[in-house]
């Protein structure tokens, strides 16, 4: 039994659903050829962003990755402006300059998705430093993948945050893969959380498919950070439901890089189903309430697509705007 209130449970459920429904639209639009560039979907990992962000305030910071839509959504971003950005439209978060891998919303502390694996880790650390220097009680959260945990930026940043005692929560989304390579081929350890010991900070493994579990562990780490007790590393074990990037079948040419049992397991561990089930089981809300959240969310995403589709392209002249401050 979890000890969350109905409000919190429904709040988390809404975040999970918003991500799911948003990403489903993006996937569909990509397949139909309506999007430029490339997109990496967060489906299957929703519990991580939702569980963590539910433990945050609006003025807390997050940094994100190439797989960033879920983090923006969970932090309270506007699906319209995110969708417009992915379309490359003027009304997008970054006026069409960023795109899927570079979405930011500074008004909600979302400091940016990032096309460079591990690139957001030092930045989140710097936001933590800023909090400490400005003496506020904000918290900085850094999302990154299992693959990113092999980058030098991971090592340097966690060590820096630990020695400086910064209010940062490092959240490793361990989805078992970096692109097409399984984590077992790129690290000789089972749990990335053990790396916390190398920096003298607490490390926790959590079931990243169970949003309420994630919320519990994240709340604790966020609380620690807010109380000035320093950083924590959380490893959330999760699964990417789709490919690394949409459209990868084109060059995989029928070749499978995941074992069928892995895919079956991932399907069973769907964070939306798990949360749905837990909420009902623990009597936190009834099916009707959940259904109405879904309708709401789906409706919002349809509107987001319409908004994005009908938005104007940026004026080519704006290519020279947003340069020197």
């Amino acid at each position: 039994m979890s000890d969350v209130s109905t409000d919190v449970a429904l709040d988390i459920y809404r975040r999970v659903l918003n991500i799911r429904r948003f990403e489903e639209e993006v996937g569909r639009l990509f397949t139909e050829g309506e999007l430029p560039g490339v997109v990496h979907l967060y489906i299957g990992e929703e519990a991580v962003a939702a569980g963590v962000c539910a433990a945050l305030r609006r003025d807390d910071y997050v940094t994100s990755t190439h797989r960033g839509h879920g983090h923006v959504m969970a932090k309270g971003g506007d699906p319209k402006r995110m969708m417009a950005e992915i379309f490359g439209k003027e009304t997008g978060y970054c006026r069409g300059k960023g795109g899927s891998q570079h979405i930011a919303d500074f008004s909600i502390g979302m400091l940016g998705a990032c096309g460079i694996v591990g690139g957001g880790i030092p930045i989140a650390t710097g936001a933590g430093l800023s909090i400490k220097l400005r003496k506020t009680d904000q918290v900085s959260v850094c999302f990154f993948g299992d693959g990113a945990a092999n980058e030098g930026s991971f090592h340097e940043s966690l060590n820096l945050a630990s020695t400086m005692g910064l209010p940062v929560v490092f959240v490793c989304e361990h989805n078992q893969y970096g692109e097409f390579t399984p984590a077992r081929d790129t690290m000789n350890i089972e749990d990335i959380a053990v790396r916390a010991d190398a920096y003298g900070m607490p490390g926790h493994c959590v079931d990243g498919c169970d949003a309420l579990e994630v919320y519990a562990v994240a709340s604790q780490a966020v609380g620690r950070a807010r109380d000035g007790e320093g950083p924590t590393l959380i490893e959330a074990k999760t699964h990417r439901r789709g490919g690394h990037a949409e459209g990868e079948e084109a060059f995989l040419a029928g070749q499978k890089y995941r074992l069928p049992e892995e895919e079956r397991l991932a399907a069973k561990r769907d964070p939306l189903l798990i949360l749905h089930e837990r909420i009902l089981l623990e009597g936190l809300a009834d099916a009707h309430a959940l259904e109405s959240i879904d309708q709401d969310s789906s409706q919002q995403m349809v509107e987001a697509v319409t908004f994005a589709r009908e938005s104007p392209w940026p004026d080519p002249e704006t290519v020279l705007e947003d340069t020197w401050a």
Partner: protein
Amino acid sequence: MPRKTSVDAMREALRAELLRDERVVVIGEDVKVGVFGGTRWLHREFGDERVINTPISELAVAGAGVGAAATGIRPVIDLMFGTFLFLAFDQIANQAGAMRYMFGGQTKLPLVLMTVSGAGISAGHHHSQPVHPMFMNMPLIKVVLPSTPYDVKGLLISAIRDDNPVLFLSPITLGSQRGEVPDDPYTIPLGEAAIRREGGDVTICTAGAMTRRCLEAARAMAREGIECEVIDLRTLKPWDEACVLRSVRKTGRFVAVDESFPVCGAASEWAATVAEKAFPHLRAPVQRVSNLDVPLPYSPVLEKAAVPTTERILEALRRCMQTEAA
């Protein structure tokens, strides 16, 4: 001759050298799957010891390439996107390029670093930056930027056989383009330009993906009766200065077109060299066409505007034709 894609050409080059020399190995993130295709499935033929997947650790991977190259291996390292080289910058500039010289000639460093390069697929700044000028600025690193499948194969084989560090950049938009590529291995000397179109009125110096765009511009100018000579450098360092200067002595006019940021970019290097060494022959100011000096935007409309367009090339050519030296 069989028509093949640039990706096929790259795979053929790698396969030929893996067969020819057992010291050659291919290393990188996901080289087995081969995100861009150049290394795809080579491990099926050559095994996991010759085609090696790595963790996402650019600095260590590039540095391991340096250490291996200094001790008898000829590593070909695929780092995927040009900007990922920034994570390995220290090992490239401080070690790969410097090691032989710094140690008084004690070692050779037969190391190839490969990535795609440039914009054109709405990938956003982190996956679209041109990086070659920064590496051209480093001493003792060769830089290659082919423009055709034929050249990809011949230049990559040369790069692998070269005893120096070579940065092998493939324009990201070149991958699926087809061209004639012989089945057998062949080499194209590093440092030798190709004249893609002859003309007596103005010299265009370019490389990589811009070659095609310059040829388009040259065709448009021809319709106005102006004949452009289009030189595709193919190797950016060392570059075929002699070929360019020869052409400028003939035409008296020079336009440098390069997909890189303008300040200290490749076009500046070419233009400065021509102005320094062919000055008496110049009948008009040298002209440069480069990227705008902004990060690469994502939206196709903006991305298109950020890199040299055919229109901007044409404008430069017209400026060059109008002006007579004072």
